[in-house]
């Protein structure tokens, strides 16, 4: 990618005694789309707000286009933010909401009206320019919030869970629209979400946060294929990865787990305790006596139509996913085929990944 648009080095944020961000390092390239994901309270919004300048960083450095911005007020940063609440100005109609920033800059009224018209056409609001926010649906408000951001051509867009108040279908559509818009106007975007699917589908760089710490960052598929630790492995992917305790067998390459021997493609210390991670979509159901298969029994089947979730009678219980409707019934004896190169292994103490892949 090209030169960094936003650079964050060793940034800490304290709220009194509470340590909300811990030595965060992050580089956002010009034109990049970076997603910040993590469970509730992990510090996603805090990180975004420090970039915006709405929160002051306690330590570390932050640059926007080579300018050190540690103490720069939000209004001088030239960033646009789309809030989860949209934060539309209730006393202004859509046109005035869109052009508020231009008005502050002293752009003439005629020019503002022209720009509002252009932006409204880009995002499909042309018929709503005279409406007040209270007379808009959630989806329309969301669009106004987007329009208010893009009208300024800022150095970067900051999104804080902008889609979380929309229904599922609209969310999927807006996901694509936002990404398309990002590409079309060549924007730089930082996107906060707690929905890993949103992060994986929209971003080219995903940052996984937990308790103020960046657990891992990288391309979406890199996080999926090579999670750095058990937390990332469990957080990325849906349904979540299965975990089971195991011990490395005499041959150093297979693991005794789930009451069977599971082959892997790595070599480890025999007798070492490990945590085995299996993605639901990587385990397939075969005949109980198939060679190398882990014998088990189906405990329950849940069909969604497009796919089926199978729950097995292992300890701990495993979740598997198959396409379409499964013919399997609860109580049936089956075997589980586990490809050796799809077995994830973690250190049970440090939770770090043991597989040295990639």
């Amino acid at each position, binding site marked *: 990618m090209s030169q960094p648009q936003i650079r964050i080095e060793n940034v800490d944020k304290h709220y009194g005694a509470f340590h909300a961000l811990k030595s965060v390092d992050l580089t956002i390239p010009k034109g990049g789309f970076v997603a910040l994901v993590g469970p509730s309270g992990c510090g996603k919004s805090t990180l975004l707000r420090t970039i915006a300048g709405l929160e002051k960083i306690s330590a570390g450095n932050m640059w926007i286009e080579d300018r050190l911005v540690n103490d720069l007020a939000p209004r001088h940063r030239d960033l*646009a*933010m789309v809030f989860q*609440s949209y934060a539309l100005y209730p006393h202004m109609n859509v046109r005035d909401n869109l052009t508020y*920033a231009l008005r502050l800059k002293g752009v003439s009224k005629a020019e503002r009206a022209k720009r509002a018209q252009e932006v409204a056409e880009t995002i499909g609001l042309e018929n709503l320019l005279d409406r007040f926010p209270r007379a808009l649906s959630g989806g329309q408000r969301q669009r106004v919030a987007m329009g*208010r951001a893009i009208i300024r051509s800022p150095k970067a867009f900051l999104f804080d869970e902008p889609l979380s108040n929309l229904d599922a279908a609209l969310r999927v559509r807006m996901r694509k629209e936002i990404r398309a818009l990002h590409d079309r106007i060549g924007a730089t975007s930082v996107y906060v979400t707690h929905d890993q699917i949103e992060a994986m589908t929209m971003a080219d760089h995903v940052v996984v946060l937990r308790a103020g710490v960046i657990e891992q960052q990288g391309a979406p598929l890199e996080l999926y294929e090579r999670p750095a630790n058990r937390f990332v492995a469990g957080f990325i992917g849906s349904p979540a990865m299965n975990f089971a305790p195991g011990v490395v067998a005499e041959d150093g390459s297979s693991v005794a787990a789930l009451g069977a021997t599971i082959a892997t493609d790595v070599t480890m210390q025999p007798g070492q305790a490990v945590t085995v991670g299996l993605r639901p979509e990587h385990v397939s159901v075969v005949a109980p006596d198939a060679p190398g298969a882990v014998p088990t029994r189906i405990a329950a089947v849940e069909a969604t139509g497009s796919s089926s979730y199978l729950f097995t009678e292992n300890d701990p219980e495993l979740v598997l996913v198959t396409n379409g409707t499964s013919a399997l019934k609860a109580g049936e004896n089956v075997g589980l085929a586990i490809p050796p190169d799809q077995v994830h292994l973690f250190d049970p103490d440090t939770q770090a990944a043991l597989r040295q892949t990639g």
Partner: protein
Amino acid sequence: MGPLRSMRDGIGFDTLLIGFALLYLLAFAGLPLLYNVIISFQQVDVFSLGTLLHPGAGWDNYLSIFRDPLAQMVLWNTIIFTVGSVAFQFTIGFAFALFFHQKFPGATWFRGLFLAAWVMPGLVVGVLWNWLLSGDFGVINHVLLSMGLISEPIFWRSDIDVSLYSVILANIWYGMPFNMILLSVGLAAIPDDLYEAAALDGATAWQKFWTITLPMMRSTIGAVLALGVIFTLQQFDLFAAITSGGPAGSSTVAQYWSWQLSFREFDFGRGAVISVMMILVVLAVSLVYVRSTRAETRM
């Protein structure tokens, strides 16, 4: 069937509650008001006071009030007192509301302390200001003198040029906390994220105030100003305690004059004329208040 059913589905009960409230208003506000209007067209003196009906006077009472040499001064005094009190109560109250809206330790606590002034009875406040304003040993004169702003003490309460202003001063102090509290509530109702959005849009603190705070506060401001005018027109205790309307009527305002005419000179007809005219003013201001609060619920 009928009443019982409507009682059960709640409509009857609602009507009953509203009925009580209306009845109360009619009996204790409506009738006195009406009687006041009637009296203003009658000849009432201390001897005929006890009877319900008095000889009619037509517009005589009104004409005599308009022709009274005091009338013009009282009108001016009332305007100066009302505008001066409300303007300063409001601006100082707004400034304090904005100040306490900044989040600093103890902000809500200090703001609460200000209410102490507001819960004091008017007569107590009046006595307090009598001491502060006293010509010989008052604190205010002492401060002004020692700062070199004046060379000899001002006799606040007995100087015809300043007596009205001494009451205005006390009234500003008395009414400011009420303005501050109502405006604080209005400020607190503006979501923080609007200010954050404005900050990112490039607004300075000053621009945020003019483009977000003020327009968002419009209905609150309307209500506060309207209530301020109404309360100021009701202010009586401070006059009674500080200047008694004097010297030579220099601090007499309409409500005080009305009281003087009725209860000092027992000229109830003319006293009623003044209160009828004040009712009209208050009615107009109340319309502003009702419209402001209605806009509030629509937001």
